[in-house]
């Protein structure tokens, strides 16, 4: 738990929230970032030219309402050059830049070495690694420097997976599988957020991408693919009973137990996750308690009802959930 919180603190308290298009953590986002700076400079020049021309017109000669109208030269040549010829050249260049950049940001599945399936749901991200049987939610782990094929779809309405520091966004559309490639240059935690309005809690549907050294990633993957550790003592046993006796199992899955619901996020290794409620709050004992008792207070309109629990039951349940590493 301590390691998780440290990681979380690193990611969350760093400059910005780790969700900036101007912070380059991959070749793809780097390409887009370069395009942005080129276009910004170009736009600044155009704005300066237009402002200069405006100033020229406004400041040079002023008339009064009674002044006689002059029949001036039509100005067609100026308009043709400034309005057609020059913009055409600029736009052709811009188009060339576009065509050049497109392959860098588009998924080239042949080059990828790993697949992860991400399913957008109202309002969380269901993440699984089909080759290994690992499943989690609201976190994607990837090995550093390895291109990963992220296969994106939705179970209900249109969402959009957007992790700006790694690549462009890609819509999660029910009945359709889209692809985006994540290839992180450096280890780190990168925040992403749903970017297509998807209903009441669209605002609280975020996730973290954790890029880690290959060995760490493999270890994480193996652990995540394994079933939940069985309760190691009576208290944890009791906690598991509380879980299985409440409504939790109808929506949540904990591999290795009878809880196999698929409505809500997979909880098999809940304790390894940095956040709750799709990155709405940090994962910690107090927050977890608050979430279980009254999720509507934290994320009003989300699909999880509150669960009334007595003090001792709650404490044992929390102990059990904290043991799911």
């Amino acid at each position: 738990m301590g390691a998780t919180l440290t990681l979380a603190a690193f990611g969350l308290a760093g400059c910005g929230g780790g969700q900036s298009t101007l912070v380059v953590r991959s070749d793809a986002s780097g390409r887009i970032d370069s395009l942005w700076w080129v276009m910004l400079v170009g736009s600044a020049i155009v704005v300066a030219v237009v402002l200069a021309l405006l100033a020229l017109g406004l400041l040079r000669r002023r008339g009064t309402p009674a002044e006689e109208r002059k029949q001036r030269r039509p100005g067609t040549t100026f308009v043709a050059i400034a309005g057609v010829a020059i913009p055409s050249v600029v736009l052709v260049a811009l188009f060339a830049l576009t065509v050049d950049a497109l392959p860098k940001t588009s998924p080239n599945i042949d080059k990828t070495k790993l697949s992860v399936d991400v399913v957008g749901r109202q309002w969380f991200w269901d993440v699984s690694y089909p080759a290994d049987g690992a499943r989690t939610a609201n976190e994607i782990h990837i090995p550093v420097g390895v291109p990963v094929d992220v296969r994106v779809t939705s179970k209900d309405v249109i969402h959009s997976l957007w992790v700006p520091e790694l690549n462009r966004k890609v819509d999660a559309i029910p009945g359709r599988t889209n692809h985006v490639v994540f290839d992180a240059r450096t280890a780190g935690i990168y925040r992403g957020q749903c970017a297509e309005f998807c209903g009441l809690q669209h605002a609280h549907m975020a996730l973290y991408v954790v890029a880690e050294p290959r060995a760490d990633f493999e270890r994480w993957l193996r652990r995540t693919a394994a079933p939940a550790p069985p309760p190691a003592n009576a208290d944890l046993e009791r906690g598991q009973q509380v879980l299985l006796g409440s409504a939790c199992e109808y929506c949540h899955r904990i591999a290795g137990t009878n809880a196999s619901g698929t409505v809500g996020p997979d909880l098999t290794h809940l304790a390894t996750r940095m956040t709750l409620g799709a990155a709405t709050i940090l994962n910690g004992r107090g927050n977890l308690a608050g979430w279980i008792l009254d999720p509507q207070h934290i994320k009003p309109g989300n699909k999880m009802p509150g669960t009334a629990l007595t003090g001792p039951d709650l404490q044992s349940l929390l102990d059990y959930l904290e043991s799911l590493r």
Partner: protein
Amino acid sequence: MAANVERLERAWAEPGALITAFATVDHKKIGVRYLTTATVFFVLAGLEAMVMRTQLAEPNGRLLSPEAYNQLFSMHGITMIFLFVTPMLSGFGNYLVPLQIGARDMAFPRMNAFGYWVFLAAGLFIYSSLLIGKAPDNGWFNYAPLSSNAQGTNIDFYGLGLIFLGISTTAGAVNFIVTIFRLRAPGMSLNRIPLFCWAVLATSFSIVFAVPSLTADCLLLELSRKWGFHFFEKATGGDPLLWQHLFWIFGHPDVYIIFLPAVGIVSSIVPVFSRRPMAAYHLVALATMATGFLGFGVWVHHMFAVGLPQVTMTFFAAASMAIAIPSGIQIFAWLATIIGGRPVIRTPFLFVVGFIVVFVIGGLSGVMFAVIPFDQQVTDSYFVVAHFHYVLFGGAVFPIFAGVHYWLPKITGRMFSERAGVASFWLVFVGFNLTFFPMHIAGLLGMPRRVYTYPDHMGWDVLNLLSTIGGFVLAAGILVILANVLWSVRWGPPAGDDPWDGNTLEWATTSPPPPYNFPVIPVVRSADPNWDREDRSADARRLEHGELVLADGHETVSTGEVDAELERVLRMPTDSPWPLALALSLTVLFVGLIASSNLIAWVGVGLVLASLAAWHYPWTPHEEELA
């Protein structure tokens, strides 16, 4: 001469105020109604925005529930686009087009009245949803399948409301096209029509071909929601993207439906305040029509993130870049006119200058969106919110404010306060930029759009606070404009017929114009007819001789489509209650549909047929029987 004018006055004398209120077909009155009703919707949408901005001023805001916020942002977009900006520009069109082409009314005066009543009815229909807390809450483009599966009537107010409103928009477009082609003053060939009329023409053609796409989409949506049809889900052979394609085939031309009349206003003001004819008139007219046409070929750029083939996206990227060219032509034509002229800086012109600055910035960020990978990074973020507010507020609202100040003296006969006008301009200009410029940065820093709140460690806090403060400054500026208008209507000094020395024909008659617009139909020989003093004196002489006075009833002329040679005299309808009756009948039908009441709906159909029959029945036949 006096006898002729007296005959006109008698022919056009209006019945009592009550009848006029419900039965007038005078395009000027209808135009003013569009303008004032649209303004009310503008204020409502603005209030919606201010509540949202208050919620977003700080992270983790608790002022609004997500339900409330989602209804507000949806209604803000729907109201601004469908109930404010297009009807407002329609109001200018209604008021000005007959005057600018030298006619006495539109080609279909009763359909004109009908269009207004349906706009009012559809607007009230949509807003009734807010009163019962069931406003549309899925954004102004309402993607499926969230829309098709949504419980409750919220989305039905959207689907049925927009079909209802589309009747008004389409009727208006048909009216403008026929009017501009057939009712122009003799001599006003196509290359002499005011650029504002070119804009209205291009807009109206766009409406004719674009609105059916929205109608089709809403029809499919309502069939899905109410009668169990399936269009938008893969499981039953449908496709969520079908909604998007049909929507944006309407939606992108719609932005030109908004933009073109607005820049038509700019093209009206720039020559007058630059004291010279418009530079490159022909290129500007061509660019206007080209924009309307090309606007149909770019819609996929709203869908670059959905996973379409690269080839498809590349074509639409090229088209989206190409469409920047006609806009560039217009911008440089205005700049050439200003530089080549002797600019007079008054409030209307200030708003035009504001428009140029803001629209150029918005247009440039728009070109950035044509670069597919960049679009895929920043679409659906606050960067695109910044972009479209720059092009919509810059490209349409600034010109509307300019037009309000420019034509207020003509419509009311009174001049506004120039000092208040200047103050309002600066408040609006500063407030607008303070509100929306930071949104570019917020988007680049990863803030998605349509979020009712945001966390506090993202670097977005200060930017949002600045936007909210800017919003209040902008609101203050708008309040000053409203106050200025209201004050001047009551207490403004008389403006005279032609306070700006305008170049188009509305300035050749009194302020406000008489019901018959002109005592004699003008004859035109250039694109700046009010600057042709000899021609206007010739009009006065023809009035003396009674030539083209046409005082036997409500009459105007119809002329050839291209060269405007005189063809025949048209007798136009006078006040009629049937446009209102038909609009009310349609309202009954749509209420029946949203309430899922077959009885009410069929009653509505019956009333519609009865109203149509009464409308076309020759109650007082004017024409002779031919057989």
